[in-house]
């Protein structure tokens, strides 16, 4: 009796002693997250990433190793982001990075990803330049992946939807393009000016406004004077203010297109409901089962953080899963092996089926767009709720506009 006790005790002690170094070998795998956490779109990035990490860890981690998210606030500053990136790579030894929804910041980080051989993905920036650099200088830039649509691709989604929503359903013929002056809107506008007319909307004016604009009255008055049927937007740094002034001034044409701030669930409250009727582009919405993962993700996110996820929260959540899968397949945290595995990604995430374009493509390491992959949605704010209005097969409602909107007869 006694002997067996002591054996049990001994084996317990030994077992513990043996297990201890094994636990050291299973150090967590760190993933760096760099974003502006005081902005609602920004804070979704670490939030989404942490959710994914918790889920993966609960299911056993990556080959037994846990994922640890190390997050850095870049205050929407490229230089802060670069410092955070260097720290992540050199001091905190992360295996991969998820960074920012601002193109200017991502473009500043991109050369550092190459220099430090640090795999990186952006869950929300849109500039075409991000993937163009990978295409032009693959050997140095291959560490960079684009986890969101490129501006040209976004413009194409908006144009494709406008054929049905604006031209067919509402009999519209003319548009004014209104975009903010930023890196991501240069290719966006270029594509708008080509694809809108091709879809049946003549562009009567093209306005680029400063992202510092606070008084939009002159801009709306100018637009109104040109009598277009619709205002096609390309805005992200601005959003709340033009929307509120559009409503207060009762500008009679709908706002339609890209409006990143409108993707946040707090947009309705921030604008005191002025958002009613605004139609904006998204890759996934809380009311649409883009994939079986979309709605559960949005619900869990809301329960955990108190509001619905902004667009970059969906992608950031998916990004962690993709890095985890790539690291598992690579069998190590060697950056070249991770990149090689990441290139073979075929992941059904919250925004659709994600696969990356090969190095020869103009959008090298950008996402594959189209039927069966990422298609994009058009969503409208209606009485406090975002309602998906396009494409028809997933739409949850029809377009409704505020009383001051004058639609073509």
């Amino acid at each position: 009796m006694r002997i067996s006790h002591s054996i049990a005790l001994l084996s317990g002690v030994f077992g513990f002693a043996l297990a201890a170094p094994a636990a050291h070998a299973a150090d967590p795998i760190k993933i760096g997250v760099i974003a502006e956490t005081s902005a609602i779109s920004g804070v979704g990035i670490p939030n989404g990433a942490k959710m994914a990490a918790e889920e993966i860890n609960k299911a056993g981690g990556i080959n037994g190793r846990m994922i640890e998210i190390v997050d850095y606030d870049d205050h929407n500053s490229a230089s802060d982001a670069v410092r955070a990136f260097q720290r992540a790579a050199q001091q905190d030894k992360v295996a991969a990075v998820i960074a920012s929804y601002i193109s200017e910041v991502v473009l500043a980080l991109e050369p550092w990803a190459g220099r430090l051989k640090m795999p990186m993905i952006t869950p929300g920036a849109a500039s075409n330049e991000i993937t163009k650099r990978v295409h032009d200088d693959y050997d140095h830039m291959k560490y960079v992946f684009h986890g969101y649509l490129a501006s040209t691709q976004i413009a194409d989604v908006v144009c494709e939807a406008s054929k049905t929503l604006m031209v067919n359903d509402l009999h519209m013929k003319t548009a004014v393009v209104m975009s903010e002056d930023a890196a991501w809107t240069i290719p966006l506008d270029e594509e708008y000016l080509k694809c809108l007319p091709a879809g049946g909307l003549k562009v009567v004016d093209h306005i680029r406004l400063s992202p510092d604009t606070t008084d939009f009255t002159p801009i709306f008055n100018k637009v109104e004077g040109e009598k277009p049927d619709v205002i096609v937007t390309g805005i992200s740094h601005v959003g709340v203010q033009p929307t509120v002034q559009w409503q207060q001034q009762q500008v009679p044409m709908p706002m339609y297109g890209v409006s990143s701030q409108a993707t946040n669930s707090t947009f309705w409250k921030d604008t005191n409901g002025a958002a009613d009727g605004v139609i904006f582009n998204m890759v996934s919405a809380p009311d649409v089962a883009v994939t079986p993962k979309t709605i559960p993700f949005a619900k869990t996110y809301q329960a955990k953080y108190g509001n619905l996820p902004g667009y970059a929260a969906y992608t950031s959540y998916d990004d962690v899963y993709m890095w985890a899968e790539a690291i598992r397949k690579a069998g190590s945290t060697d950056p070249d092996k991770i990149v090689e595995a990441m290139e073979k990604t075929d992941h059904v995430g919250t925004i659709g089926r994600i696969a990356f374009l090969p190095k020869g493509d103009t959008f090298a390491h950008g996402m594959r767009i189209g039927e069966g992959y990422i298609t994009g949605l058009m969503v409208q704010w209606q009485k406090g709720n975002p309602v998906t209005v396009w494409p028809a097969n997933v739409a949850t409602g029809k377009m409704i506009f505020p009383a001051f909107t004058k639609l073509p007869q």
Partner: protein
Amino acid sequence: MLALQILIDGFAISSLYALGATGFTLIFGVSGVLNLSHGAIMVVAAVIAWWVAGTFGAGPYLGALAGVAASLACAFFTYRVIVRPIQNSPSIPREEKEIFVLTGTLLWGIMLQEAVAYLFTNNPKTVRPLVEGVVMILGVRTPLNEILTAVLSWAAIGLLYLLVNRTRTGKSLLAASMNPRGLTLLGFELSRIYVLVWAIYGVLAGIAGVLLGAFLGVSSDNAGTLTASAFSIVVLGGLGSVSGSLMAAYVVGYLETMTAYLISPSIRTVPVLLLLVAVVYVRPQGLLGRR
């Protein structure tokens, strides 16, 4: 039509600028303090008004009141905790006090701005306007809120005018700006006058902040720009001169509006800055400055 539009829009924004700059110049005139936390205090007023009106569902009036109260509290805090200790400190040489006050209020402004960004995010917020809807003024569709902004701005400035010129307390303010030593010799307590002027400032900045939040919307990122715009208006009008600031507010407001309409909205603020440079060269005391 375009001229009328410029006239109406320019008037509303100029009135708001005038109100914002009045408090700023008053403080400088009476107590010699350039309060660089001005923009941040306006932001606090707007965000608190938005928060109380929206999140608490207290409605626009209570919200506006809460915004002004918050601004008043910030103004008192700025005076008691930042400005006065520096002014009274024996370890700071007299000639360096101004620069210390400048730095102190600048840092305090950044702290306020970051606190707002931390607690409420830096996404822009719009205060629910007191009135909704539009009216046609000679064919120009004008939001009622825009008219109300101009009316309330002028009402506040008018009340200030009455206070300064018609009441004994107000006259002591004026006297303090001209000859503080003389005033103390007459038995007035300067510190009480300073508290009063900061209180008036707090109310003015609060009203300006809430109106700005309802008219254009405000984000914590705007704090620096708001301080800068009040500062340029005050320099243009002549440091410490209230009527100069009012005039300068209209010059700035109309110049900006005209630029936005006639040239391009993206270079809206450029001509004003050029004008400011010219004024500093040619007439450094500003339009109505005493020197």
